[in-house]
C-alpha cells in the first residue's frame, strides 16, 4: 500500500470516468456515456473529492488517460487535468489508455499477456502489447502504434488475450490473423481506476510532469495534407 492521494480522469473513449486513490483504496465513478463527457467529468471528480472530504490542493498528483483515443475526448481530460494541476500546483502522471485496458483485464481475469486495442476509426486500430511485471502492473512490450488490423503481428508465444473496442470493430480480421488468441474481452474501455493504479507506480518512479507538460499521445499524426503535397 502506498500512502498517496491521487485523482485520475479519463475521457478518451465512449467511457467517462474519475477515480480517487487514497492510501491504497480506490473509489471510482465510471460511466459509459458517449458525448456526455463535458457534462459529466467535472461532476464525477467533484463527487469523489467531496465524498472523501478533500480538495484538489490536498492531492499529491493527478493522472489522466493521455491517449490514444478520440482526439477531442483525450483533450477534454487533458484540459481538465492541466487546469486542475495548474490551479493547485500539483504534478500530473500521464497514463496510456491501452495500458489501462490491459491492467483492468489483468485485475478482473488474471490475464498476464494482453493485446490491447482501441478502435481508431478510418479502418485503423490503436494497438499495444502488455505483459505483467513483478509488481502486478501491466507493462508495454515494444511500442504502441496505430495500424490497420490487417497489419498486426502475433507476438512471441505465451497465452495472449485480446481486449478493448478494437476487438469489437475489427474482431473478424484480428481473429483471422491471431488465431491462437481465444480469450477476448471486447467490451473493455480505459478506466480511471487502473489509470490511478498505474499512475501511483509512475509517480514513485518519477514519471510525474508539470501541468503544462501533461499533453496527449495521439499516435495518429497524419491529420492533414500540406498544399504542396496535394498537387
Amino acid at each position, binding site marked *: 500500500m502506498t500512502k498517496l492521494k491521487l485523482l485520475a480522469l479519463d475521457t478518451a473513449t465512449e467511457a467517462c470516468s474519475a477515480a480517487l486513490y487514497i492510501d491504497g483504496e480506490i473509489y471510482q465513478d465510471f460511466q459509459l456515456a458517449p458525448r456526455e463527457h463535458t457534462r459529466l467529468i*467535472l461532476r464525477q471528480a467533484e463527487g469523489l473529492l467531496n465524498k472523501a472530504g478533500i480538495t484538489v490542493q490536498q492531492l499529491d498528483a493527478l493522472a489522466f488517460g493521455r491517449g490514444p483515443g478520440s482526439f477531442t475526448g483525450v483533450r477534454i481530460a487533458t484540459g481538465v487535468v492541466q487546469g486542475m494541476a495548474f490551479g493547485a500546483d500539483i504534478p500530473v502522471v500521464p497514463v496510456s489508455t491501452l495500458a489501462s485496458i490491459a491492467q483492468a483485464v489483468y485485475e478482473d481475469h488474471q490475464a498476464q499477456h494482453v493485446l490491447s486495442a482501441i478502435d481508431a476509426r478510418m479502418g485503423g486500430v490503436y494497438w499495444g502489447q502488455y505483459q505483467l511485471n513483478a509488481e502486478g502492473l501491466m507493462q508495454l512490450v515494444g511500442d504502441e502504434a496505430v495500424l490497420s488490423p490487417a497489419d498486426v503481428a502475433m507476438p512471441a508465444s505465451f497465452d495472449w488475450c485480446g481486449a478493448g473496442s478494437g476487438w469489437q470493430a475489427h474482431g473478424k480480421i484480428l481473429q483471422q490473423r491471431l488465431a491462437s488468441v481465444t480469450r477476448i474481452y471486447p467490451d473493455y474501455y480505459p478506466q480511471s481506476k487502473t489509470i490511478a493504479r498505474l499512475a501511483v507506480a509512475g509517480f514513485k518512479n518519477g514519471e510525474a510532469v508539470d501541468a503544462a507538460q501533461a499533453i496527449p499521445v495521439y499516435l495518429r499524426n497524419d491529420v492533414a495534407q500540406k*498544399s504542396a503535397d496535394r498537387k
Partner: protein
Amino acid sequence: MIVLGIETSCDETGLAVYDSDRGLLAHTLHSQIKLHAEYGGVVPELASRDHVRYLLPLAEQALQQAGVSKHELDGIAYTAGPGLIGALMVGASTGRALAMTLGIPAIAVHHMEGHLLAPMLEDAAPDFPFIALLVSGGHTLLAEVQGIGQYQILGESLDDAAGEAFDKTAKMLDLGYPGGPILAKLAEQGRSGQYKFPRPMVDRPGLDFSFSGLKTFTLNTWQDAKQAGSDDEQTRADIALAFEEAVVDTLMIKCRRALRETGIKTLVIAGGVGANLRLRGALQAMVEKENSALFYPRIEFCTDNGAMIAHVGCLRLQAGQQEDLQINTRARWPIDELEKI
C-alpha cells in the same frame, strides 16, 4: 474583480488578465498562422493540438506580466463559441477546471460579443447605444447595440463573410495565406479606376450583404487578364484594389444606411477585417459627413485575442452570471440569443 480570459476558438491562443478597476493588465497571444500556412487554411485538428501546448505557458506569462497571482483571480472567462468545436474544447475544459480548483466562478463567453465590445477596451470607449459593424473571417453583421447583451441584428452576409471573401479572393489571385492582409498590402500598389467592380446589394433596401458574387467577378477579371497575357504584378495589384474598394464601399454604404435609419450617432467596427486601413479611412470620412463618431479597437484587438474575452467575462461575472459545473461549448451560437445584463 480580476478575471483571466482564455480564447481558443480558432487559430490563436489568447490569454489575458482584466481588472474591473484598472482595466486590461496583460495579454499574451500565440498565432498559429505559420502552422496553417503550409496547408492553405486552418486545419482544425492541428489548431486544437497547438492550443493544448500553448495555453498554460501563455496563462503563466499573462499572470506574471499583470503582476497577479492566480490566487488573486476572481473569475475565469473562456470562449465557449462560436468556433471550431475541438479548439473551443481546449480552452473550455482547462478554464472550467481551473475555476473549479481555485474555487472561483467561470463564465462561458460568446466570441463575437468579445469582438463587438472590444472597442470598450480603449481609453476612448464608445457609449451605448451604437451601431456595430462586425467583420471577421467567419462573420459579417450589422447590429444595433443598446447595451450589453442587447444586440439587434440589422443585417448579415447572405453568403461569404467579409474576411472569408478577402481570403478566398486572395487565393484566386495566387496570393499567400492568410489572404486578407496580403491582399490589402498588394492593393496599396494598385491604381484606382482601372477596373469597374459592382457594389453588391447597395441598390436594394435593407442592410444585408453578399460577397460571393464579387469574389466570382474578381476571378473572372483575373482570368481574362491572364488570357490577354496581361497578368503582371501591376494588373494583379489593380484588381486587388478594385476588389478591396468594392468591399469597403459596400460596407460603408450599409453602415451609413444603418446610422440614418436608426438615428444613432455612434459607429463601432470590430473583427479581423476591422484592421483594414482603407475600411477605417472610408468609415471615418463617412461618419464625419454624418455628424457621427467612429470607434474601433487597436489593430491587435481586431483579430482574435484573450483581452476581449476577459473583458466580456468580467462584465458578465460582475452582473452575477456564472456557469454550472460543466464544460460548455457551442460551435453555433446566434449572438441575439445572449442574455442582457
